[in-house]
């Protein structure tokens, strides 16, 4: 085993710049993110429309479509929060775990995917009360727990 001690260049770079309070940096970043909100809403709608209406073909074709659902859902994560619809991030995360679990087992059940996608369409609507959104997420969590009960994740630190 080789061990190398090296200077932390990130630290040097930060130390060489004029200091800025972290609170100021965060405030500036959040203001810039706020300017992206509508762009993110539009992106979210594009991704939502990209989900299929169902799975078709033989098992191999269906598994390819499950993977596409997974990829579309993964792209939503993070965009929804900036769009001001954080509940959709939670739903997208749940859909990823369900689709991943199906792919691991080489299954291609449409129903759990359909429920997630339908729920996302509901969460996207602005006329849904907060309490109802909470209930929808609880239902999704229950479904996720059945399909992917012990999905190992890299969940480390989120907002």
């Amino acid at each position, binding site marked *: 085993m080789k061990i*190398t*001690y090296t200077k932390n260049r*990130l*630290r040097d770079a930060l130390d060489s710049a004029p200091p800025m309070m972290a609170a100021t940096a*965060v405030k500036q*970043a959040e203001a810039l993110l706020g300017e992206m909100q509508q762009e993110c809403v539009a992106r979210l709608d594009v991704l939502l429309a990209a989900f299929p209406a169902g799975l078709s073909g033989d098992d191999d074709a269906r598994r390819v479509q499950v993977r596409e659902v997974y990829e579309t859902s993964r*792209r939503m994560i993070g965009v929804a929060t900036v769009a001001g619809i954080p509940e959709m991030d939670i739903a997208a995360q749940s859909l990823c775990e369900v689709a991943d679990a199906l792919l691991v087992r080489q299954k291609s059940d449409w129903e759990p995917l359909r429920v997630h996608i339908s729920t996302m369409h509901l969460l996207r609507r602005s006329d849904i009360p907060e309490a109802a959104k909470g209930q929808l997420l609880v239902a999704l969590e229950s479904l996720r727990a059945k399909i992917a009960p012990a999905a190992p994740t890299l969940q480390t630190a989120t907002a």
Partner: protein
Amino acid sequence: MSSAKPPKALLNLQRTSVLLADADMMGQSIVVQMLIGFGARTVARCDEIADARRHLTSQPYDLVIADPASFGPVGYDLISWMRRELPAPNRHASVLIITGHTESSRIGQLRDSGANFVVSRPLSATVLLERILWMSREKRPYVETLHYVGPDRRWRDVPPPAGTAGRRQKDLEVAARIAAGGEMNQTDIDLIMNATA
């Protein structure tokens, strides 16, 4: 977007050269907006792995931020390639991996890629800033073994086994912090990774 309280620290990325590798343009833009808010002026944006490799081969970067999953299977090799194949200084550059979701079959590969830190989307400005600050304070050496090249992961604040009193006053600190749902540091993450491996 974030209700988390920013750390009472100083940070300015004005003189930090950053490489951002993310195949998803919207995901890229979100991170870039945060970096600009933190003062960054030099952010190389790469939406293809070949482009990221070309950048990393041609000029030094102080901070590399990557979403390997966004590139598909080839994305998972980027950081390990950087740690094994590149000369210094980029070989030892600080690396932050951002991931929306990681396929269960890829978790081990991502964990062993040699990144300094892994964070999940959705990512708030506060969390990104905290992780950059944390990496800037890192003093871990880099190790090279047959199966792993990257920051030394043996440098841990491991709590004593459950049910024992511990030998030092701070022994239970990590376990207590995780149990309380508090912020995690790299050693906490390493503990969790080992538990799920």
